[in-house]
């Protein structure tokens, strides 16, 4: 506890027996998140037939319902060594890291791998390069699922239905069994339970009861680990977090927007400096667990397609710049945030385009913001934190506590995301 009676922000200080991190379910989720890059290999070693997913926009219920284990691929925090032999350095840094990992045999244990297709040019070209350069998983274990660039209309729904049908056939072949509607319904319930728990954690973070780094860690673990165990862990964590004391007023309240933030260090670093992330629009966190899926037993695959069309726009899609701009501003207002941290991925064209529109709007509204180009596992950590320090200074030109002996301010209690339409 701090002098004002509020709790420390996030999980720090580490090792504090009273901190949230001392609870076994939280510890377990943090361990799983830290191990996300090694999850596929670990689960395969346990005898699971792992289907790697290169994007959160793929209906992960399907492989799960077939007894396969869907795992979102998180690249390892290692320097790229092999991929420059076959891939130019102007390619997206995440794609370089992914191919590098494959060339080094680190993805060989995968039973299959599914790419999103019709998205960005780097990802679109990757499977072809893979077929010629990576031994395992080999060509028969790769699938490209085409997604529409416009998430609306009957034509888009028709495309998605056909593509999901095709993916189902491929997955059935990988599983050696046909898809059973009852099992798909059970998988959908399980995934919805995980999504609901993540949304609840997000609300608790907005209220200051947990740090957003825990939401990020839970989202990472939820995409890379056994979903049944994760669902139980998240239910326990939401119970613990619901009665956790709220943190005091933050030095700064910010919303994150950007690419695949695969490392929790950034949020932990912010929390250690008493800055609160209160919401996000990123490929690694909130976009992974929205919205729930409601399956009609008569045509469950069509409902998976409909869920995709209800998702918020991915940066590769048409109109995402203005849609994400509106979402970001809405999130900032709803959470009473003071600014935003924009995290486009280095070499990612869709994010680079969207970022221009996001930054312009934030400037127009007079909201402090910073753009940090990130690389897999945050890349140049020193430069990143130096720039972030400068950004945080904008929110604390004068340290009130040094001069002000008035009573401590009450903890900030913003509306939770669900309270405001």
């Amino acid at each position, binding site marked *: 506890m701090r002098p004002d009676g509020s709790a420390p922000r996030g999980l720090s200080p580490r090792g504090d027996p009273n901190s949230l991190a001392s609870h076994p379910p939280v510890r377990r989720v943090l361990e799983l998140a830290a191990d996300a890059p090694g999850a596929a290999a670990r689960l395969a070693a346990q005898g699971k037939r792992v289907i790697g997913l290169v994007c959160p926009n793929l209906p992960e219920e399907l492989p799960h319902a077939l007894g396969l284990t869907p795992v979102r691929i998180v690249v390892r925090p290692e320097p790229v060594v092999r991929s420059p032999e076959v891939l*130019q350095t102007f390619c997206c840094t995440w794609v370089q890291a992914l191919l590098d990992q494959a060339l080094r045999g680190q993805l060989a244990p995968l039973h299959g791998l599914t790419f999103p*297709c019709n998205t960005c040019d*780097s990802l679109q070209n990757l*499977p072809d390069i893979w077929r010629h350069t990576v031994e395992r998983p080999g060509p028969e274990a790769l699938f490209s699922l085409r997604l529409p660039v416009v998430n609306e209309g*009957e034509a888009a729904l028709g495309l998605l239905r056909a593509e999901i049908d095709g993916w189902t056939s491929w997955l059935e072949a990988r599983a050696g069994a046909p898809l059973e509607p009852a099992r798909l319904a059970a998988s959908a319930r399980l995934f919805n339970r995980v999504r609901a728990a993540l949304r609840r954690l997000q609300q608790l973070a907005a209220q200051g009861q947990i740090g957003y780094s825990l939401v990020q860690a839970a989202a990472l673990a939820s995409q890379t680990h056994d979903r049944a165990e994760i669902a139980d862990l998240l239910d326990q964590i939401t119970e613990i977090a619901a009665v956790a004391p709220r943190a005091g007023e933050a030095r700064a309240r910010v919303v994150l927007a950007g690419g695949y933030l695969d490392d929790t260090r950034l949020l932990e670093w912010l929390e250690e400096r008493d800055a609160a992330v209160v919401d996000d629009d990123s490929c690694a966190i909130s976009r992974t667990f929205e919205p729930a899926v409601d399956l009609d037993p008569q045509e469950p695959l069509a409902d998976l397609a409909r869920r995709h069309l209800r998702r918020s726009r991915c940066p590769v899609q048409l109109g995402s710049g203005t849609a994400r701009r509106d979402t970001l501003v809405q999130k900032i207002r709803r959470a009473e945030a003071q600014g935003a941290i924009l995290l486009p991925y280095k070499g990612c064209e*869709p994010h680079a*385009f969207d970022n*221009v529109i996001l930054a312009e709007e934030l400037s127009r509204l007079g909201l402090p913001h910073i753009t940090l180009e990130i690389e897999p596992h945050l890349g140049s950590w020193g430069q990143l934190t130096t720039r972030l320090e400068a950004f945080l200074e904008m929110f604390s030109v004068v340290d009130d506590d040094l001069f002000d002996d008035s009573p401590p301010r009450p903890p900030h209690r913003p509306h939770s995301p669900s309270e405001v339409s």
Partner: protein
Amino acid sequence: MLARLLRRGRAKDNALYRPLKSSAPLKTLMQRYYLVCKAAPRLGLKTAWLTSGAPVELPLSMGIIPQYPENYGALCGARRVGVELCQAAEARGYSPDLCSYARNDIGSLLAPDRAPLKGLSKPDVLIACNNICGTVTKWWEHLAHQLKVPLFMLDTPFTESERPPHLIDYAARQVEQLIPFLERSTGRRFDPQNLRRVARRSGETVKLWNECLDLCTARPSPMNSADRFLVMAPVVTLRGSRMALGFYRTLKREVIERLERGEGAIVASERIRLLWDNIAIWYDIFKLSGRFARGGAVFPVDTYTSAWTGALDISSEPDPARAVARVYSDIYLNRGMETKLAIMERMIRHYELDGFVLHSNRSCKPYSLGQQVIRRELTRRTGKPGLVIEADMVDSRHYDTRRVPDQIAAFLEVLA
């Protein structure tokens, strides 16, 4: 502008080239075209901006004048103002890692005083098709945002192998929506008879273009890549128009005359025949060709200008939307590596080539990613060596003018 470009390049390398006489009618045609585009708003004419792979026949049949930011980007690159325009976009927050056609185009909107012709005239509508890359989806979203004009996006998903029927259905359903979109946005009426006429002319134009390209199988080759990069302009921008059709009849006659006289595109004796892959390096187009020509090397074929060889035939198709969907879905860049390799292998054999040059173009990922694999595979399948040149089509900051000549010299030595 085009004439100046032709003169500049040719004057310096007259000793190496045999200029095409068709340059004169090309100059007239393109000048008239740009004049009409610039005057369109004042004349009350409707214009559309299109991506290079969009179905131009539809707007053309409705009397909507097409304009092409990519073609304009090529002109800016060739006039060496591309870097300045790219920098104007970068100053606004656009990453230097983005496609230079996109940055050049956005830069010309932000800094029209620095842009040739002060930029393209403002369109009434935007028509984009992602059959050439995913970048256009975002680039054109930004154009719509900045210009505040309606955008139609024709989504033609990439396919690595055979195109399944549902992808044609998907594209066809969208093509059906394009007509009411254009009617709504421009007030122009769609007439199926006009579309048939335009499609027939487009098909004939593309057929003539194909024939001109195929005549380059001759030894010596009557056209070099630099020739084709310039004379391709009408087939990209105006296919379906009478002007374009007339131009390619003229061009074909000239190419045949060259063949009859046994004249090649380069003055030096043709000793080495090469394949060019990727978009031209617009700011170095003649110097680069000259470096090869000095060593007796010519490019009888390239994957870039061959991309506009799919003829639209709606006469035999009961559903014209499906015909449009099929032709525009199946272009070179929208196909997987195996298809590209098969096309390049066929080119090497059909044109009896000695090697190939791959332009690793940091602005065009669909063309460039995978080239290391392509180089290896193509050499394995054909026994011909390949060279990779690193550059950018418009942004010359990514072009090493010291290294590239050395690379070329070494490559030609190997082939000699």
